[in-house]
């Protein structure tokens, strides 16, 4: 009933190759579309039109942006710590590609059903912080370093509520694999049972992807362009690319954990999955264009003084409920 790529292709190397092609293809097209969607969506919120000239409804706008970024001069400033500076974009982007393979798109299709998927997710989502820090520190620029320091502090302090929000789900389904968690939600999505965990997860996820109101690391009005101040051309494109792919990952995890993945009436499984993912992405975009930015210490107190206690209480209530039922 459940086929993953290894059964499909037999030889694991072939499976990895196919998975890489599919994931890379999906992420590229998805990032192009998400950038276009964000510009159009934010334009509608701001009573303007957004890109309309390039291609029908401005659809080719992001393609033009990417082509331009690719053909830009790849500037490596002299004062830069070369190895760190060059490795940073790859470090930011690599974990996301790996994470893409874990999601069960529908009952029949999952690229790689890993039974410790949640652990892998948390490990890798911590990895891209290292990439951001390498970018900030490597580019040897005061604004970039300030941005990097902020990024590390923010991601670490929002990793804890993220984990504590996922734990109740794992406790309820007693499994770490996305496939089982989703199939356990056939009757009702877990958001009905765990609304608080869902909210905490979404807030922590917005902070993980450095999007407003938590976009302190690349706060445009304070730190010029934050950790990617010294990046030009396609290196900057990669950071842009990674941010939007990270957004998809985070929303996909939210759908799998809280909104019951592929389950849904009428339409086939994977259609529901993508509907829920893109609905959550629109919510994240909507939040970005409405809220101002938190100050750095307010952000930290919000994480430690509000989110962590709430998540702990929620965890406690869940364990007691599981014990009784």
């Amino acid at each position: 009933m459940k086929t993953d790529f290894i059964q499909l292709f037999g030889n694991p190397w072939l499976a990895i190759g196919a998975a890489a092609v599919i994931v890379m293809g999906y992420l590229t097209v998805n990032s192009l579309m998400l950038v276009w969607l964000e510009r159009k969506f934010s334009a509608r919120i701001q009573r303007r039109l957004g890109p309309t000239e390039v291609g029908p409804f401005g659809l080719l706008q992001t393609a033009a942006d990417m082509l331009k970024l690719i053909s830009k001069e790849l500037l490596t400033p002299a004062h830069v710590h070369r190895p760190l500076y060059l490795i940073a974009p790859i470090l930011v982007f690599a974990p996301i590609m790996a994470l893409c393979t874990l999601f069960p798109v529908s009952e029949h299709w999952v690229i790689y059903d890993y039974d410790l998927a949640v652990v892998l997710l948390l490990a890798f989502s911590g990895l891209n912080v290292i990439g951001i820090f390498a970018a900030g520190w490597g580019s040897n620029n005061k604004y970039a370093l300030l941005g990097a320091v902020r990024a590390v502090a923010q991601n670490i302090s929002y990793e804890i509520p993220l984990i504590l929000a996922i734990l109740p789900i794992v406790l309820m389904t007693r499994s770490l694999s996305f496939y089982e968690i989703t199939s356990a939600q056939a009757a009702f999505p877990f958001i009905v049972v765990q609304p608080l965990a869902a909210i905490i997860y979404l807030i922590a996820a917005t902070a993980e992807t450095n999007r407003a109101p938590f976009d302190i690391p690349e706060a445009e009005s304070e730190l010029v362009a934050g950790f990617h101040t010294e990046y030009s051309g396609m290196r900057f494109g990669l950071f842009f690319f990674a941010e939007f792919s990270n957004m998809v990952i985070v929303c996909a995890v939210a759908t799998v954990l809280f909104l019951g993945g592929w389950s849904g009436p009428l339409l086939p499984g994977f259609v529901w999955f993508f509907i829920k993912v893109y609905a959550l992405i629109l919510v994240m975009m909507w939040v970005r264009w409405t809220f101002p930015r938190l100050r750095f210490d307010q952000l930290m107190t919000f994480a430690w003084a509000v989110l962590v206690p709430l998540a702990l209480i929620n965890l406690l209530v869940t364990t007691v409920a599981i014990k009784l039922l």
Partner: protein
Amino acid sequence: MSSVPGPAMELVRDDEDRETYYLNMGPQHPSTHGVLRLRLHMEGERILSVFPVIGYGHRAHEKMAENRDYLMFLPNTSRIDYLSGMIYNLGYCQAIEKIMGIEVPERTEYIRIIVGELNRISSHLLWLGTYLLDLGGITPFLYCFDDRERILDILDSISGSRLTYCYGRFGGVTMDVDDAFLESTAAFCSYFHERLDEYEDLVTDNVIFRQRTEGVGPFSADLVQRFGLSGPCLRATGTRRDVRKDEPYGIYDRLDFEVPVGKTTNGDCFDRHTVRMAEMVQSLHLIEQAVRDIPDGPVMAAKVPKKIKPPAGDYYFAVESARGHFGMYIYSDGTDTPFRIKLRTPSFAHVSAMTEALVGTMLSDTISILGSIDIVIPEIDR
């Protein structure tokens, strides 16, 4: 591997043996509202001392005033503070009229009130938009600019320009207003009242906005007196001081409006915000009164001397611009070119107050305080 360059972050051990560094919020920075440079001596995220470097927008207005006659200096006045260009332009005309004793017809006085207050609202709107841009909220900027475009259309229909007006002349204004102008102004006033309530709900009551502005950058009464602040920054600290009320010019004494004032004695960013929002409401009242009872009649004074030759001596005339007390100290030696015009601009005092107001704050608060005092760079550098 290439040699690893020295760290950009050269840590400097200062007198209290703290690891500090110098950060340049340089002439080109998204939230310095122009080409202001702040050399921040910082420790981590906290600011120990600020050394503002100005002069990047210095365009030598005062030197130009000394080699052209009084009328030729008129276009310069609206380019000093281009956000309240109309107020500066009409203020200069009123100064010369007072010195030369030129009587201005009634209708012009009312037109000057309408046009000046519209310009004040458009300046406050731009401030609100860019202030929230500094705090990270991008969307209100677009809504404020959308309303501002409506005002610019109204002002454009009579003065011909959107930003740097040259609408005033000694003894009157260049063009008379027709009924279409008065109707569109009245329509704008009624439209803008609900719009202000919308801004109140969306911005003033926004939780994150409150956290970023309440208690941030308080200006003590002592600081206000030592630096000579004026305008919304002064009124936010509770002193009810407005040039339109204290030294009334034009017909401000006939129209009734209050001067909004902050609640506490050390006004912080949030008080400055509420004062400016309330000022917009007061400006709307002023415009409505002026539109309601504007008399008919000529727009230009009957006899205006061809060559303006003020009697020798020094004069001072002040107007209330959107940023505060704008004064002109004119020293005339009897000829038709001014001997010296000193332009006393409010933002000059506000930025000099930054050396004390920003000490001890975090970087994000610096941006918030700098945005809340609403500066225009060429007005500082003249």
